[in-house]
């Protein structure tokens, strides 16, 4: 690369890297619109349960707390991974990223259980306007996490093979932005879907 500004952290050192980070922030802006639309639809459809169950009837606090706990923790560990990356500790970066992805996988497992449970108790996606919107909103978040697992794995492999450099550090940093964003969305889901529905 032509101009490398070594006064900055690795991921910001090249112009290409800086462009990618800004571009990703703009993409997150679009993602905010996506989830904002889903939440708006959810608020509209919340009471439109037809013959199906209401939120209060199907939400269970147990799995939701597990999901919340593991996802918030994973946000912390991806922060640690980036911290380790800034210190130049390749091994610690990889390990914290692996922990992050494992926590993400646990989250996903619990969410799959939750969906299975909903389908089992007669709250499948085709039951009512409410269940359709609920499961689509949760599912969109879940799909983002799933995609993140594949993406994160690809980045771990690249760091392991090529070490920490401008390119891999940039990828890991952008991945951390994505992962934190999913956490923020989950906080909204937890507060405005589950807590609001159970109260």
């Amino acid at each position: 690369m032509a101009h490398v500004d070594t006064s900055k952290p690795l991921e910001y050192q090249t112009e290409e890297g800086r462009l990618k980070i800004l571009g990703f922030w703009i993409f997150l802006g679009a993602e905010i619109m996506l989830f904002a639309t889903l939440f708006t639809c959810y608020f509209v459809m919340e009471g439109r349960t037809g013959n199906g169950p209401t939120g209060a009837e199907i939400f269970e606090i147990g799995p939701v707390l597990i999901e919340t706990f593991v996802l918030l923790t994973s946000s912390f560990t991806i922060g640690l991974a980036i911290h380790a990356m800034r210190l130049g500790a390749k091994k610690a970066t990889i390990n914290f990223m692996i922990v992050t992805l494992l926590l993400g996988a646990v989250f996903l497992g619990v969410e799959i259980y939750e969906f299975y449970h909903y389908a089992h108790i007669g709250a499948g996606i085709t039951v009512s306007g409410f269940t359709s919107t609920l499961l689509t909103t949760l599912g969109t978040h879940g799909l983002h996490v799933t995609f993140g697992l594949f993406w994160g794995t690809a980045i771990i492999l690249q760091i392991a093979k090529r070490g920490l450099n401008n390119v891999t550090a940039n990828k890991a940093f952008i991945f951390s932005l994505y992962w934190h964003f999913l956490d923020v969305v989950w906080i909204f889901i937890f507060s405005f879907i589950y807590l609001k529905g159970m109260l």
Partner: protein
Amino acid sequence: MEFFERFAIPHPSFLIYVAMASMIIGAIVIVAGITYLKKWGYLWREWITTVDHKKIGIMYLIVALLMLFRGGIDAVMLRYQLAMPENTFLDSQHYNEVFTTHGIVMILFMAMPFIIFFFNFLVPLQIGARDVAFPRLNSLSFWLFFMGMGLFNISFVIGGSPDAGWTSYFPLAGNEFSTSVGTNYYMISLQIAGLGTLMTGINFMTTIFRMRAPGMTLMRMPMFTWSALIANVIIVFAFPVLTVALAMGTLDRLAGTQFFTTDNGGMDMLWANLFWVWGHPEVYILILPAFGLFSEIIPVFARRNLYGYTSMVWSMIIISVFSFGVWTHHFFTMGQGALTNSVFSITTMAIAVPTGVKIFNWLFTLYKGKIEMTTPMLYSMLFIPLFTLGGVTGVMLAMSAADYQYHNSMFLVAHFHNVIIPGVVYAMLAGLTFYWPKLFGFMLNEKIGKATAWIMSIGFVLSFIPMYITGLDGQPRRGYTYSEASGYGTLNMVAFIGAMIMSVSFLMLVYNIYYSFRNSPRDIGDDPWDARSLEWATNTPIPEYNFAVLPQIKSREAFWDHKYGGKDKDLFAGQKIERIHMPNKSGVPFIMNVFFFVLGFCLVFSMYIPAIIAFVGVLACMAHRSFEDDHGFYFEVEEIEEIEREKRGAIK
């Protein structure tokens, strides 16, 4: 055999068989032609795998022009059906399909790629950059758009076209009332093309924020770049809403969910709201770049600086904010209370204010200018009065109480064609004529060009003014026929004649391209219009890296000042040529989107196993991109000097 029955057309007719045959013959001719001329390698190397913003732009342009004619044929069919009372040229089902595809093709597959062509071609040149921020993503955007377009266009020969209107309102678009796969095509092809547009939005926002030449502050950007920036901000914030709406519509149709159904808590109005929360900003995505082009063209041919630069910028920013707050005016009659309607009435009328500011700014630019009436200028001069007329009828429609009279009538159809044709289409044609020498190295013939503009405008007035009258008289939109007693016959015949005159003008446009290609001189230099902004400072044809050295900007009209001894007279002076880093070509975006096409096609027909296989293909291409170690390549100093010498030395 049963498996193949699903691909049959539900309502076949002679016209569709003709279309089918002509499509197949056309495809054979193209494939045979390319093979005969041995151009497959050239096509792959120079176009399909390209990441150069200028070439990607030209591909958008080609698609836009093709779709202009595809949508235009639809339009002529519609007008011919309505030309006489109780005409039997199209039956009701075909009429529904034709007006649906006309709307989608013209908005999403003609107007959108046309403006994205201008983004691609102009923005990097106007800001003095060497490419967009993410060249590979740009190629991906194009192929996403292209495959979405392709998927939509095969609908009428495989499985049947969508027939629920371009707005696709539920429950009409639901499984109960739209039984063919047509609406599946709508949902999925728009989703794929929409993803491409979203990527374009992100790409150009980043480009404009970060890649401007040294000294070019935001308030020194050319007006088209400003309009592109704002349109792309709207894209990034509006298209995710469409993504959600289309995903929900797809789920409703394929998985039996209850979003837009009429029982079990479904809500059909949710679709209408989501669609227009995207749909209204969408019309500003189209019109703002059109305004930007007029703002480039008018100062050049009035020989004056653009009047009121700052107010132009602020009026666009205000329009972009308001554009998200007016969507309900598309369905004033569909059940909101008086208070909601009043609020949206006021916000809608408020948009007329910044738009009016822009009209006056153009008029003041002309005032005391040395006006030179070239073809692009003629389009601009026809645009101002015709567009203002459309704007005024828009304010009429914005009055929610009065809208009960206009709603779903031909008056509305006349209104939006009156803003889109003189607004967007004229801007596109004016821009195309204006930038043609920069694109292809020769000018389009002025005489034919001006005649085209006049004939188009006469045709336009004859087509659409009668619709205002029949609309006020009660002729509904989307009605496939009317009785003789209604008395709409004469005016509809006039509209058909107008449509035919417009068709003649579009054929003249094609003839002009052919004629000029044969006859126009090629030694026109780099700046044949004596224009003002940076894109004219490049060599024609533009080298792959655009600028050998980056311009140093000191004013808004940098190139003009450079030519006429203002602050920027040393625009390129005193700089050494350095090696230039450029991105590599790649075929992966194309291959990935072939998978996307297969995925979309399989989903349309609910064939899930091949859909999953195609989706894995998409993911594999993404993984390939992630693991690929691609550092681009360099133009070395000697190479650049060689190219620049050949092009008569731009290093002044």
